[in-house]
């Protein structure tokens, strides 16, 4: 699901503009498959799939595959529409240095939900 993330985000000029002060790397864990997403000035600079020996990232979002698959549907089912909905139900863990995440929350929510657009095509 993350193969198209860079293209989907970088093609959205307004999303990139909203994230122009973001420079960080975060981790998405789908079960125990890890992917590092590098953001530079709001663009996705790289998407690198693990395994990693010493992954270096600011924050991580961890959830089982079936949770991510529901979250990334074009219209997710009730309870799977938002990261905070998943966190509240303890279906997702958000951990690490949350400052870049919370300081750019609307931006990151749209970046992380971007695969929905790909699924809709």
């Amino acid at each position: 699901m993350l193969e198209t993330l860079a293209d989907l985000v970088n093609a959205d000029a307004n999303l990139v503009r909203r994230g122009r002060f973001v420079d960080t790397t975060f981790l998405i864990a789908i079960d125990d498959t890890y992917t590092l997403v590098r953001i530079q000035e709001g663009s996705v600079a790289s998407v690198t799939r693990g395994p990693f020996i010493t992954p270096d990232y600011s924050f991580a979002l961890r959830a089982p595959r079936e949770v991510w698959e529901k979250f990334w549907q074009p219209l997710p089912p009730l309870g799977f529409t938002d990261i905070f909905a998943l966190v509240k139900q303890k279906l997702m863990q958000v951990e690490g240095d949350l400052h870049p995440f919370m300081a750019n929350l609307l931006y990151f929510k749209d970046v992380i939900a971007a695969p929905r657009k790909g699924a809709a095509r």
Partner: protein
Amino acid sequence: MSPSFEPITGRYLHLDLLGKPHRLYIEEAGQGIPLLCLHTAGSDARQYRGLMNDKRITANYRVIAFDMPWHGKSSPPVGWQDIEYQLSSRDYVRMIVEVADALQLDKPVAMGCSIGGRIVLHLAHEVPERFRALIGLESAAHTEPYYDLSWLNRPDVHGGMVSAGVVSGLVAPTAPTEGRWETLWHYMQSGPGVFKGDLYFYMIDGDIRGKLGEIDIARCPMFFLTGEYDYSCTPEGTLAVAERLGAEAVIMKDLGHFPMSENPEKFNGYLLPVLDKIRDL
């Protein structure tokens, strides 16, 4: 587009609230049974403009919404700079009663959303005789914190942006774009720490689970409406309250936590039958 005024009137009311002088911004439209509307945490009375612009509602109801102190165009009390704002159940109940008294409202209907949906339960418990009926939007007896609230007020995070970011997922994904972003704009305009201070009531002080058994809807009828996409005040939470009280609850399709502002047209379709029932009481 030709210029046109909405039928809403906005005025500033000077009154004593909670023992201090306040300058409160109040909007209203319509004539009939007073319908006192209570906005959500960290937002303001603009959320109810969709009601005030609907003639089907204002034909029979005088729709009134005030910005709570610290919110919208209502100022915080003098000396606010030395206070950490924190909304308590006691102050919230008192504030609503004192505003209703100041406006000389005769047995109004009170309708609140989220924190307002919680406080109507407190009103039913504390002062049921003051109200003709109570309508809870997105009501639950309690909501556990599900993120660290300190993110909402710190100098290295934009408070308006993070508040809007936190609540953005509570708007139904099916909401019209305009309603979604209008709702979030109100959150972006909130003063520093105000949303966090309201959530003290919502997630800590306002827990009313232990008092539900003491609410008697024969003394003041209650109605509940909750959006199916609300994961903060969940439909399950509302249905549990309604069942306990023996009150009517409707789960609203395609709506989230801010029904009146995210999708007013759809919401009014659910509200009108409730307002009709209250007219017949």
